[in-house]
């Protein structure tokens, strides 16, 4: 009999209104396993603003402050300030936002919170588009993806702009800790979150969060797709501790087509376009390895 490789205690109730196979549900589940119940969350507009359920339903066993779309960074600063002035210690403040709420509309407030060194963990669960509103492109949608605002037509088709490198943006803020995590590697996920919890200052967690409806895939493949993202280096796992980059999982180096083929959002791509994606991934992976070797 195997022993569970992640903490057994659950901090979520069943009955969330997330879609079947929702990656963001797994992100929350692993996050709270790593943090425990002395945690206060702030969540802006995103899928997770809806997933706890209609009032008075709540699928979380920790307190939660809903906030406006662009305001997560400010909300966590406000929560921390209130706890500080009241002398409440040993509480982890967490901003938990989607990719749109982080790299687009929430970037300013998050940047402010990071610059102010707000003592909080900011988690971006990245489903690579505005999924709560029905799959519109975000700054975090990767090149080549179909979304409802990057429709595949005869003239333009799919998204022709690269995904923002939020980890590099956060690294440029000189924060003490940033890490990427995957729902396919919960042990690594929980470990990094637990590590982040012990760091003081602004910490950032970038979680890839596969979205069955938005990625046009079978919900049962959610974990597999997340795994392939790591193994193809489309979403490498690494951490940046006090500026030093460390790759935490090498991955198998599989061709990116393995990752793409599960996802209908990439089904229109030609071989040449897939090759272009592969080229970018290779370059990014090279660059990441160079960063690791050089220490920055």
């Amino acid at each position: 009999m195997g022993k569970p490789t992640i903490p057994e205690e659950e901090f979520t109730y069943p009955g969330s209104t997330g879609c079947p196979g929702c990656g963001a549900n797994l992100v929350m589940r692993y996050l709270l396993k790593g943090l425990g119940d002395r945690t206060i969350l702030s969540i802006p507009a995103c899928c997770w603003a809806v997933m706890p359920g209609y009032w008075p339903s709540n699928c979380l066993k920790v307190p939660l402050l809903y906030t406006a779309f662009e305001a997560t960074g400010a909300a966590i600063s406000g929560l921390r300030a209130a706890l500080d002035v009241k002398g409440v210690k040993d509480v982890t403040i967490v901003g938990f936002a989607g990719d749109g709420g982080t790299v687009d509309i929430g970037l300013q407030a998050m940047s402010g919170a990071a610059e102010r060194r707000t003592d909080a963990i900011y988690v971006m669960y990245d489903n690579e588009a505005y999924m709560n509103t029905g799959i519109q492109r975000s700054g975090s949608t990767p090149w080549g993806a179909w979304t409802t605002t990057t429709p595949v037509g005869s003239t333009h088709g799919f998204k022709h702009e690269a995904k923002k490198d939020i980890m590099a943006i956060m690294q440029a803020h000189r924060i003490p800790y940033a890490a990427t995590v995957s729902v396919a590697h919960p042990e690594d996920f929980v470990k990094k979150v637990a590590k982040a919890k012990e760091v003081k200052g602004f910490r950032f967690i970038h979680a890839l969060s596969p979205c069955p409806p938005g990625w046009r895939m079978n919900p049962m493949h959610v974990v597999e797709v997340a795994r392939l993202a790591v193994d193809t280096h489309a979403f490498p796992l690494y951490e940046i501790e006090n500026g030093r980059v460390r790759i935490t999982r090498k991955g198998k180096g599989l061709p990116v087509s393995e990752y793409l083929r599960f996802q209908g959002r990439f089904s229109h791509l030609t071989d040449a376009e897939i090759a272009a994606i592969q080229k970018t991934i290779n370059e990014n992976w090279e660059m990441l390895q160079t960063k690791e070797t050089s220490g920055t």
Partner: protein
Amino acid sequence: MRQVMTGNYASAYGAKLARAEVIAAYPITPQTSIVEKLADFVATGELKAQFIPVESEHSAMAACIAAETAGARTYTATSSHGLTLMHEVLMWASGARLPIVMTNVSRAMAPPWSVWVDHMDSIAQRDTGWLQFYCQSNQEALDTIIMAYKVCESSAVMLPAMVVMDAFILSHTSEPVDLPSQELVDSFLPPYSPDLKIEVGKPMGFGSLVKPDQYMEFRYKAMLGMKASRDRLLRVEQEFKSIFGREHGGLLERYMCDDADVVLVAAGSVAATAKDVVDSMRTKGHRVGLARIRSFRPFPHDEIRALAAKVEGIAVLDRSYTFGSAGAMYTETKASAYSINKRPIMKNYIAGLGGRDITPRVLEKIFEDIQVVSKRGAEDEVEWVDVAGLPRRWR
């Protein structure tokens, strides 16, 4: 103790005396010296508070909302574009029923760029569910902050309040202000202790999604809070008077209105100038009065109705304009007076936009005009005052 200070410093002292615990603010002309002073108070330890130097006004309000939800008394200050940037989260603060108090140094909106006074910024926030108090002196700016916490933190109210102070005319004008002692303020204003706050061990979600079958009940409750704020304000002001020995006129301050034939309704610093004008016109035998809208939200419906029943003409001066309609103070004053039997003639004067000085002479002319209009009716119900190119001379 009375000291000579600007409206901005008076406001900073107001927040300090109210023992604000979290202050999140972003600089904007002409509000800056409020937050500079508060940052000083926090830096020197004179005020035990957390100062969050946010990166925008939107974040200022969002941070105040979060801190207030966690049980801290919060304060911020802004102006003009900063206030309008906050618009979304202003609604959030009232919907979340958080008694945040904020000073707005009222300043015109661009374009044309202007750093000078008018009320467009705050009037544009009238539907956000905030109480709105318009001040005519630096003393009132200070006192109103302290009173506003007491009004808003009452469990029957639990709504945020905006203390509006005219750009430069109050914010940068030095005048004597009585700075009450901390002990006295403490005896008036107890620490903030909400029934519910966000805290570990209580897994609650604050501000969640509500279906159409339940949404209206929450809004109804907020309406009841605003309604309750009316009497609460009157009671709090009486208590304030008994401790501090001064008051500022409730929701609608009436000056020489009892036997007046015509009155001017106005808000903000211009009302102070208008009192001088009333006095000088009275010496010449004109029965004129001034009614100052101190609380625009809640609106002084009852007071306006009572006033309208006694006078022949009401001039309403708006330092803003609602495009496609009239000045907001006017439409609301007129609406309040509608249900009485014998209604006075009313006319709206749009004046003082973008810092255009409203001189005693201009006010005297408005009084003279409403005296005439109240006898034979207005040709134009809404008149723009002192606009170059229009036929009427005002200076």
